[in-house]
């Protein structure tokens, strides 16, 4: 399941619901990305996440489908925030369920690499020293290239 939301969400509740939906899977991996409270440029006030609907959803759906082809998954969940986020709030939650623990780990890792470098989002960080757009770092692209 893929969900973009303007409202804050609770990662623990998301894990609880996912665990129910994945009954019998054996192994569940989750990734939670949180807005940091400090960046290189100072104390973070807000992080703005911009998407381009429906391209953003379509891309994530395709990545989820790629993950399902590549690993034997029983369930998969991606929740991604858009709009204005405060420090400490979850930006992204990815969960994967499988009978095989390494499949669950790899699929979650793969999806996060996709989300960091290919998912159609733009991020603007506002700190006490101003605002700037954050683009992927070289190591994000290197991480993604592990899967090709």
């Amino acid at each position, binding site marked *: 399941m893929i969900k973009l939301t303007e409202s804050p969400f609770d990662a623990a509740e998301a894990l609880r619901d996912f665990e129910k939906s994945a009954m019998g899977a054996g192994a569940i991996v989750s990734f939670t990305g949180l807005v940091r409270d400090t960046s290189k440029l100072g104390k973070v006030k807000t992080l703005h996440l911009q998407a*381009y609907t429906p391209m953003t959803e379509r891309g994530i759906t395709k990545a989820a489908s790629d993950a399902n082809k590549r690993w034997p998954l029983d369930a998969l969940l991606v929740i991604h925030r858009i709009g204005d986020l405060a420090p400490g709030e979850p930006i992204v939650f990815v969960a994967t369920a499988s009978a095989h623990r390494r499949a669950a780990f790899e699929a979650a890792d793969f999806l996060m690499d996709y*989300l960091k470098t290919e*998912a*159609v*989002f733009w*991020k603007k960080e506002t700190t006490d020293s101003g605002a700037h757009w954050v683009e*992927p770092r070289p190591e*994000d692209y290197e991480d993604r290239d592990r899967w090709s």
Partner: protein
Amino acid sequence: MARLHFFGRLMDAFGTNTETVALPAGINDTSALRAWLDNERQLGGLLLEKTIRVAINDTIVSEPWPIADSDDIAFLPPVGGG
């Protein structure tokens, strides 16, 4: 009229997320559009950057790609969420 979309730092440079333009005669592919728009808005080459991709009617294209006055044209700086 073509609808243009600007994302990320391009939104700040254009001062808007979207606008409509009448494509002038001769501006019939993405390369010509980039050059014309960058010049007209005095962006100093920002729109010519290779890391900025173009999507036409919701699909990223290999450039140069033909454009028409009825198209939805989006300029996409490097993407990334998470």
